[in-house]
């Protein structure tokens, strides 16, 4: 959505009319809901968290810098909602793994029998991406699915531009390693 149009909507909302906010919810409900689905188990919980993300965005709309794209800012808030939820249920949203050679957690790794049976196709990759640590997974999805720039990814993930490009580079490396492993097993 054009940022000028988004700015007009946000200005109307800030002046006391909540109705135009519906356009933003309609536009971005899919990505936010699916972010939550990737982060938690259960569609009901995911819907509740997505709802919380939009409500939090509405409540903090005064802090949004008019003229920028709304989606990276919303995504940043949604990531915080997901992170808060994970902490509240005793799980760590950010699993820090720096060395690409050890970045695949044991629980993320497809077991060998499964890997042998799997074809090297989209389903395999889809499941692997879903199981990746959020910091890499979301960077890859923002870049290749939602076409965000590195600066926008950095804003959405609250990291530096250098950090964004490294997460994407390392995320790709994780997938490459996993796929080569599957190929070798086969």
């Amino acid at each position, binding site marked *: 959505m054009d940022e000028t149009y988004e700015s007009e909507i946000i200005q109307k909302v800030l002046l006391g009319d909540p109705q135009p906010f519906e356009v933003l919810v309609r536009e971005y409900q899919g990505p936010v*809901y699916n972010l939550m689905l990737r982060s938690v188990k259960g569609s009901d919980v995911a*819907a509740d968290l997505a709802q919380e993300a939009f409500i939090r965005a509405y409540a903090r709309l005064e802090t949004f810098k008019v003229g920028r794209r709304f989606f990276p800012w919303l995504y940043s808030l949604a990531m915080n909602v997901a992170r808060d939820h994970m902490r509240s249920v005793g799980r760590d949203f950010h699993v820090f793994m720096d060395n690409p050679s050890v970045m695949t957690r044991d629980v993320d790794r497809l077991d060998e029998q499964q890997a042998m049976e799997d074809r090297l196709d*989209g389903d395999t990759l889809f499941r692997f991406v879903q199981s990746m640590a959020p910091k890499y997974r979301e960077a890859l999805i923002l870049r290749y699915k939602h076409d965000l720039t590195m*600066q926008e990814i950095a804003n959405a993930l609250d990291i530096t531009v250098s950090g*964004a490009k490294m997460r994407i580079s390392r995320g790709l490396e994780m997938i*490459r390693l996993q796929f080569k492993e599957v190929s070798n097993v086969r």
Partner: protein
Amino acid sequence: MSGNEDEHMLDAAIKYEIRSMSDQRPPDGFLNRVMDKLEPKRPTVWVRLKLWLTGPRSMTFSPIQAIPVVTCALALLALGLMNMNYSISDEAEPQLSTVRFVLSDKSMSAHTVSVIGSFNSWKAERSVMWYNDVEKTWILEATLPPGDHEYMFLVNGDKLVADPLAPMTRDDGFGNKNSIMFVNGSNEQSL
């Protein structure tokens, strides 16, 4: 097929699959659930002022009103030009300099190479290099404003390579070093 081509095709497949990942639709009524929770905002004076200053405004003039304004503006413009001795300075515009990025690749092992950096929002598609068969190097010429510019080479769409010819680097905070291109006025330098 070479290993590089295999890897390039694998990367292309990975990016395609991520782009094609199907999303699930939010549950029915999600939109209404969100909207029902929203109370109209009560903007403070400060918020109203901020929006007034930053928002677009339309202004209308009748010809009668416009004539004295335009006359004054033209008079001020003429006065300003006279004080400048009719010379228009170009100092307000930053002086762009042509810089040349070079990455040696004797056997053309790379499939594609781009320069990504602070000057192009780290977007590879904006600065794709071309391969010079004679010099056996990947080359890109660009015009940049004065200042120091961080950059790296993106090889085959995913591998980040620092410029081996850049004597100056900066830590990106993630264990890697960005190369620095220092552009000084009309002459580009790599420090």
